[in-house]
């Protein structure tokens, strides 16, 4: 067994123990399956309803993917603009923080009103909730650049743009990735929420339908798929980071402070 497999064992054991306890509680405790379905029932639904789950998964995955890409593009651009212009920083940053105070639950119905019941309002909600973490972490990445490094670039006669391209931008990339990881988690929540407000497909919609149709096992199965989507996106981001930015995670060697 590889070291990574071994290190995953305790977590796996806890999950299995929890599932086991849940199963025993439902089977032996006389719990109404409409209130709490047993894990085996959820597993059965995952298999039986696979076609339904898959088609709705595709809808939600598309909303999240488009929303995050939009948030990354807009968030990164905004961070660069703010980084370059102190005036815009003073003008935009407070608004940016204040925008986070607007509750998305209030926004979603309005967006449905403006954009209809299709893909667009969901993508906008996902992008709105994902935008903030990307901007804030990217700005933090720019701010964390070693000032000595900027001095060095000046002695090398680097222009402002050269310093940005060769030092600030690469130095901030790991922060952009961190922001995107945070964005992924809130994006899934945002997508489900937007689907509850107005949708005819998607995992959030399927969940609501399943509860209404007294199909709790399917509702739980939907939740499992949502979790898997979230974890999968997060893992993909981590993997991309290791492949594309290997230097960001190298253990620092002796004397390198």
């Amino acid at each position, binding site marked *: 067994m590889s070291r990574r497999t071994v290190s995953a064992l305790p977590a796996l054991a806890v999950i299995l123990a929890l599932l086991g306890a849940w199963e025993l509680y439902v089977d032996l405790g006389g719990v109404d399956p409409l209130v709490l379905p047993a894990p085996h029932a959820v597993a059965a639904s995952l298999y039986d309803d696979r076609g339904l789950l898959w088609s709705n998964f595709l809808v939600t995955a598309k909303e999240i993917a488009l929303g995050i890409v939009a948030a990354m593009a807009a968030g990164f651009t905004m961070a660069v603009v703010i980084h370059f212009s102190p005036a815009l920083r003073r003008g935009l940053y407070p608004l940016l923080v204040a925008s986070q105070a607007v509750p998305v639950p209030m926004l979603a119905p309005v967006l449905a009103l403006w954009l209809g019941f299709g893909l667009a309002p969901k993508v906008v909600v996902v992008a709105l909730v994902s935008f903030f973490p990307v901007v804030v972490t990217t700005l933090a990445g720019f701010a964390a650049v070693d000032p000595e490094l900027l001095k060095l670039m000046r*002695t090398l*006669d680097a222009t402002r743009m050269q310093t940005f391209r060769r030092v600030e931008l690469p130095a901030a990339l790991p922060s952009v990735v961190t922001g995107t990881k945070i964005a992924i988690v809130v994006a899934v929540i945002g997508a489900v929420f937007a689907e509850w407000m107005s949708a005819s497909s998607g995992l959030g919609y399927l969940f609501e339908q399943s509860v209404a149709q007294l199909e709790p096992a399917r509702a739980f199965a939907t939740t499992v798929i949502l979790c898997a989507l979230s974890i999968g996106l997060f893992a993909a981001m981590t993997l991309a980071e290791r492949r594309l930015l290997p230097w960001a995670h190298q253990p620092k060697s002796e004397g*390198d402070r």
Partner: protein
Amino acid sequence: MIQAPAQPAAEAQGFGVRVEGVCKTFRGRGSAVQALEGVSLRASPGEIVTVVGPSGCGKTTLLELICGLTGADSGTLRSDPAALMPQRDLLLPWLSAIDNAALPLRIHGLARDQARATAAPWLERFGLGGFEHARPAQLSGGMRQRVSFLRSLLAGKPVLALDEPFAALDAITRAEMQGWLARVLESEPRTVVLVTHDVEEAVVLGDRVVVMSARPGRVVQELHVKLPRPRRRTDPEVVALREAVLQALGVAA
């Protein structure tokens, strides 16, 4: 600078460095720290001047003034264009050794292949052959300092401002690197201002040793080192000079 030279030319001729009566105070919120108080220093073209003093005597400030990173409050300062070699190597962790060394060439507009082709023979010469594509994290401390020095050299400026270049290294590597630097400067003469708190390093490397006092930094003594190179640290004359510097610093011999 419009075009970087294909090979950094041995630009020993020029003006050198002339610092006269320079004062510099850093003002913070409600406090002021006087870093330099009437410091005068001169480095003729091709001369190696070592500046030795206790921590916090404004040595780094002096180099920043020479490199034009900050201005003096009073006094005059004239210098040929200077490249800084920072105390920490400050290599970019995402670039390979060769790309770090070639960074000034890229900034001066050379294409990547051209910049690499220029830097490659230098890496070979500096004992970094085979490590061209290693990232800084994979290099030893001594190797990183050599890449950092090469980066300063490839900036193609007549003056090198070296800020405690070997302070972070272990004693053995430091001794090796001092010998190495002396040899490199023999074949690639530059006007050098090297600041250090290592008295031995100052005496072994310098044509002239400038001794500075603790804050506020002042020049307390200047010693000419007219010894042939390579110098041994056990040479009686080197030992005697070292004692003289220590005395000037107020450290009982």
